[in-house]
């Protein structure tokens, strides 16, 4: 290809770029740029009209300056002018400038959109392509608003050229991703899908000349990946023939991986493996063919030992999903040994170079861990921890702590593991971890003696981590008596050992040790005098730190004046902690959350006692049970444990929260959390119920049933066992037969630790869930509103306003309520109007709704205030005066709101049903204005 033709002759541009590159310093560069900017500005402002070429050249220079990282605040208009040029290159540069330097300046957007519109309509394929590229590459909301309805037309038009269709399809995809609400997919879907058959342009052109799409001996890898990805949007095919064909395809891909490579180029293996990984992703997604799963697992196992870092990384990643998937966990387990071996090799040989690969390896170890291999995996992780990269140590610590607790059969192993953690990576052991070990030791009698002995031995080390001193102080203070019989760990020896660490520790740890000392006085009267001497010393009684001084004074007085009995009562052994979700798990979840923000809890670990730590230590003694704001873990732990009553009361506590939304937590107690996800279409609904076991023990004989007087609810059977910490899903199919007012009730029964638990929860299925939003023009709305004027067709209600009015919140609420929010219908812009159709099996009822906020008016004493007539309200015709044409009164905290609903229900419910609808709006007044609903 002759290179000469490449330059399109903007010599001035080349000279300028060259000048910039020859600049010896940043200052010189800036000087040169400023000179050029001044030149361009004068050219643009000059009297002489610039020709297209010059305009193009200067716009290009501005673009270059921008790409160097300088701000550009002019030239946009000239770029927009280039759009309307007839010359391809000028137009092209104009589009480039716009797509790189998008400006939200509204005037320009209009001009830009005009240019695009003209090009789209030009029937010139190159111009159309430029326009489509610009829309897709900018992909902003403004673009979507302007063109979302136009592009499908281009796509399906018979006379559109293939290359343009291709661009249009991708463009539509882009807009659908950024602004799905604006793209009218519904009406176009069938026509677009139709295109797939013959149009999948890549397919058609590929069949003509497949060779062009063969990439390093791999046939059409991009298309293959796309198609495999597309299949992951669907469940496994139910048709047996289809299914076996798909399995055959997937097997072929797996077989190909075993064939000798056709090229040594990395591009060949990358393209081939890209398809392979996508196929494995599909296999994992289907999660139904055991042979395929096992083969996928073996294939990944091979990659774990591959010399390509990229493949090891991806294999570890896929293996993780494979291991955490419920069905294939077993499949992974059958290969456990290979995997662990491979992992060891990968850690030892290659791992040290790349922390992201090691991170993945640890993730995988964590995901594949279960009771059978926990000891081995925890040991692996512990040994790896000694050399691990600092950036992932804390996460490994959390993971080890979780696994050790979750799979501990023998709690002496658990105690050893945590003490090892502290020994190896004490700095990375967060408070949650050592709180947790104490909780567990306190709750388990069988391990207390062992724990005391082990911490005592660990404390013998000349240098031990402060976290160990904390654990040691607490455990010896509680259970030191269990090892005091041995002369090598007599009370005095224990005390001296702890006290030898005292002076090296931070204030919170010292405070904890002082508490341990007073416990010693109770446990071992023989060391009372020694400890009192210590407490009495100036360094304690006159310590500059208030907390330490106060403890020393109080403990000393306590030990002097309290009788043995009182002392024994005050310092009684701690009661067991209530069972709850491991706070370490919560911490890990937070840590792995999106964005991977740095740990926000640093303040808690600060060495000098913050208020936080003071609270926690007072609470360790249980002297000050009042929870404080910013309560940390221990306070949480000590909060009153109301044992879950055998509840048969129907819980409605969270019910109102679901009026305007479909997902969330409907019920939660100390054992169980119930989350809901629901979707509705016309008169049908599907609700996913998630039962989360918050404890570490199994729920047995779990069963659930739904009782409903009006709705048809079909629930799928559930597994009778929920493992500790696990979540189970149940699907409910709901059909709305006719209008109803009573919500269904979910009844749950299970056994937890021998006790039968009964829970009843009112499910948030309300009539408004069966709303389908209806768009309507202003005129239609008025007309219908007037038709629905009879008194029995209207309901209204007054709200008390508890929160200040927020337009966006109100809009979200109304949309969540189910109706379409109609913009520009109501002459008063502060009002909201909406329209929707309630679908039931027997009938459909249209409803109109109106909410009137009143920001100004204020009635001091709410609900009885007679509403005033609002002359701007045009809908009042034919209605009894009192509730139409009326302003509600609401303002901030004191005001009241007012809801009206209008409705003639086909049945005799009349106002009642409509009122029910109104009452669904949350009574807490988030929407604090008048609602009118006409049916």
């Amino acid at each position, binding site marked *: 290809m002759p290179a000469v033709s490449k330059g399109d002759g903007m010599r001035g541009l*080349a000279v300028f770029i060259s000048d910039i590159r020859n600049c010896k310093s940043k200052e010189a560069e800036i000087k040169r740029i400023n000179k050029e900017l001044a030149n361009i500005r004068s050219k643009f402002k000059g009297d002489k009209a610039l020709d297209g070429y010059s305009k193009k050249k200067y716009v290009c220079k501005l673009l270059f300056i921008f790409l160097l990282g300088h701000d550009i605040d002019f030239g946009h208009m000239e770029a927009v002018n280039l759009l309307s040029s007839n010359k391809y290159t000028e137009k092209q540069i104009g589009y480039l400038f716009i797509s790189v330097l998008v400006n939200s300046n509204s005037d320009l957007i209009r001009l830009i959109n005009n240019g695009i519109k003209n090009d789209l309509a030009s029937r010139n394929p190159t111009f159309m392509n430029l326009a489509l590229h610009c829309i*897709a590459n900018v992909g902003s909301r403004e673009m979507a608003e302007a063109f979302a309805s136009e592009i499908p037309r281009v796509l399906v038009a018979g006379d559109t050229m293939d290359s343009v269709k291709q661009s249009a399809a991708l463009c539509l995809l882009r807009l659908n991703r950024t602004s799905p609400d604006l793209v009218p997919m519904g009406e176009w879907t069938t026509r677009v899908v139709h295109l797939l058959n013959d149009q999948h342009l890549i397919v058609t052109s590929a069949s003509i000349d497949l060779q062009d799409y063969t990439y390093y001996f791999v046939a059409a890898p991009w298309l293959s990946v796309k198609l495999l990805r597309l299949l992951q949007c669907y469940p496994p095919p139910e048709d047996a023939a289809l299914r076996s064909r798909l399995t055959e395809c997937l097997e072929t891909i797996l077989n190909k991986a075993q064939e000798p490579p056709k090229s040594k180029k990395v591009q060949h293996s990358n393209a081939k493996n890209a398809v392979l990984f996508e196929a494995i992703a599909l296999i994992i997604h289907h999660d139904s063919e055991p042979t395929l799963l096992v083969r996928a697992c073996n294939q990944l196992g091979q990659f774990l030992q591959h010399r390509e*870092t990229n493949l090891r990384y991806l294999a570890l990643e896929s293996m993780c999903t494979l291991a955490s998937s419920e069905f294939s966990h077993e499949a992974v387990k059958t290969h456990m040994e290979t995997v662990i071996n491979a992992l060891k090799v990968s850690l030892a040989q290659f791992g040290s170079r790349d922390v992201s690969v090691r991170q993945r390896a640890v993730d995988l170890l964590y995901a594949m861990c279960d009771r059978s291999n926990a000891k081995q995996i925890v040991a692996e992780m512990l040994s790896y921890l000694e050399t691990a990269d600092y950036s992932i140590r804390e996460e490994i610590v959390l993971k080890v702590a979780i696994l050790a607790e979750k799979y501990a059969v023998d709690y002496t192993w658990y105690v050893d593991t945590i003490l090892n953690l502290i020994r190896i990576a004490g700095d990375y052991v967060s408070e949650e971890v050592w709180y947790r070990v104490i909780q567990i030791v306190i709750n388990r009698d069988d391990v207390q003696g062992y724990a005391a002995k082990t911490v005592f031995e660990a404390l013998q080390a000349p240098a031990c981590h402060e976290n160990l001193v904390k654990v040691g102080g607490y455990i010896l203070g509680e259970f030191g008596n269990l090892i005091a019989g041995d002369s090598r760990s007599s009370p005095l020896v224990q005390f001296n050992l702890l006290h030898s660490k005292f002076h090296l520790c931070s204030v919170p740890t010292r405070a904890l040790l002082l508490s341990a000392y007073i416990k010693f006085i109770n446990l071992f009267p023989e060391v009372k005098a020694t400890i009192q001497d210590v407490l009495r010393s100036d360094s304690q009684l006159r310590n500059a730190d208030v907390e330490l001084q106060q403890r020393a004074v109080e403990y000393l007085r306590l030990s002097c004046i309290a009788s043995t009995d009182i002392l024994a009562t005050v310092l009684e052994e701690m009661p067991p902690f209530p069972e709850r979700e491991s706070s370490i798990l919560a911490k890990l979840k937070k840590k792995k959350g999106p964005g991977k923000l740095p740990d926000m809890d640093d303040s808690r670990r600060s060495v000098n006692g913050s208020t936080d730590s003071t609270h926690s230590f007072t609470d360790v003694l249980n002297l000050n049970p009042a929870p404080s704001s910013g309560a940390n873990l221990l306070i949480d732990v000590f909060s009153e444990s109301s044992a879950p009553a055998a509840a048969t009361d129907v819980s409605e506590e969270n019910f109102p929260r679901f009026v305007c939304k479909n997902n969330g937590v409907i019920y939660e107690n100390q054992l169980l959390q119930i989350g809901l996800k629901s979707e509705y279409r016309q008169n049908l609904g599907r609700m996913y119920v998630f039962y989360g076991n918050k404890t570490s023990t199994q729920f047995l004989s779990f069963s659930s049933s739904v009782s409903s007087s009006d709705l048809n609810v079909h629930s799928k059977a559930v597994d009778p066992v929920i493992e500790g910490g696990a979540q189970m899903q149940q699907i409910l199919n709901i059909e709305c037969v006719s209008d109803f007012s009573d919500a269904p009730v979910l009844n749950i029964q299970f056994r937890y630790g021998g006790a039968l638990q009964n829970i009843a929860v009112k499910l948030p299925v309300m009539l408004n869930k069966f709303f389908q939003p209806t768009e309507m023009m202003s005129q239609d709305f008025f007309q219908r509103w007037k038709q629905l004027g009879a008194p029995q067709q209207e309901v209204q209600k007054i709200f008390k306003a508890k929160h200040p009015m927020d337009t966006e919140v109100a809009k979200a609420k109304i949309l969540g309520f189910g109706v379409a929010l109609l913009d520009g219908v109501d002459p008063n812009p502060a009002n909201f109007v909406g329209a929707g159709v309630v679908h039931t099996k027997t009938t459909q009822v249209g409803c109109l709704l109106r909410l009137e906020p009143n920001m100004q008016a204020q009635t001091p004493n709410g609900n009885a205030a007679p509403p005033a007539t609002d002359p701007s309200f045009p809908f009042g015709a034919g209605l009894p005066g009192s509730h139409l044409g009326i302003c509600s009164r609401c303002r901030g905290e004191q005001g009241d709101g007012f809801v009206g609903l209008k409705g003639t229900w086909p049945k005799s419910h009349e106002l009642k049903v409509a009122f029910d609808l109104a009452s669904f709006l949350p009574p807490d007044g988030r929407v604090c204005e008048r609602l009118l609903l006409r049916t």
Partner: protein
Amino acid sequence: MQFMLLFSRQGKLRLQKWYVPLSDKEKKKITRELVQTVLARKPKMCSFLEWRDLKIVYKRYASLYFCCAIEDQDNELITLEIIHRYVELLDKYFGSVCELDIIFNFEKAYFILDEFLLGGEAQETSKKNVLKAIEQADLLQENIDFQMRLFAGSRDPAQRAGGNRTDINTIFIAIHTPPSASYSAVCS
């Protein structure tokens, strides 16, 4: 794909293509962070990393880093080959492309990318077809302003720019030319 960045070993941005609407400030912040992160990585490390909630796929060709941000469900390996295909396209078009070609003809680099990717998705993966499209565009332009060709300098980028070649850090991007003869036949 959410965006693609080309930057040099010195951290100079050579090309940026965004497929998500972001503010200039945000773009600068992302660029700064990513350039730092990627440049800090050692040669043998894997080409993928997790960054915020995106996956970064990058590869170094001579003095230039090509860096793409993709979403969770996107395929890393195929993205790596998108990068490679783009490099091949540049290489074919400029004829043994180097960083300077991209500096001096940045607009061409954009046009080629636009022919290949649209809205972050591969539009046309056939090298032949992309180059054909670019050739046609070039022809269009030559017909229109053929006069301008008189100004077009020689193949040598430094000379074309009127600069002194020796003081410019020229490193040719070494890429493997495809084994198939049909490729070269198309473009020669």
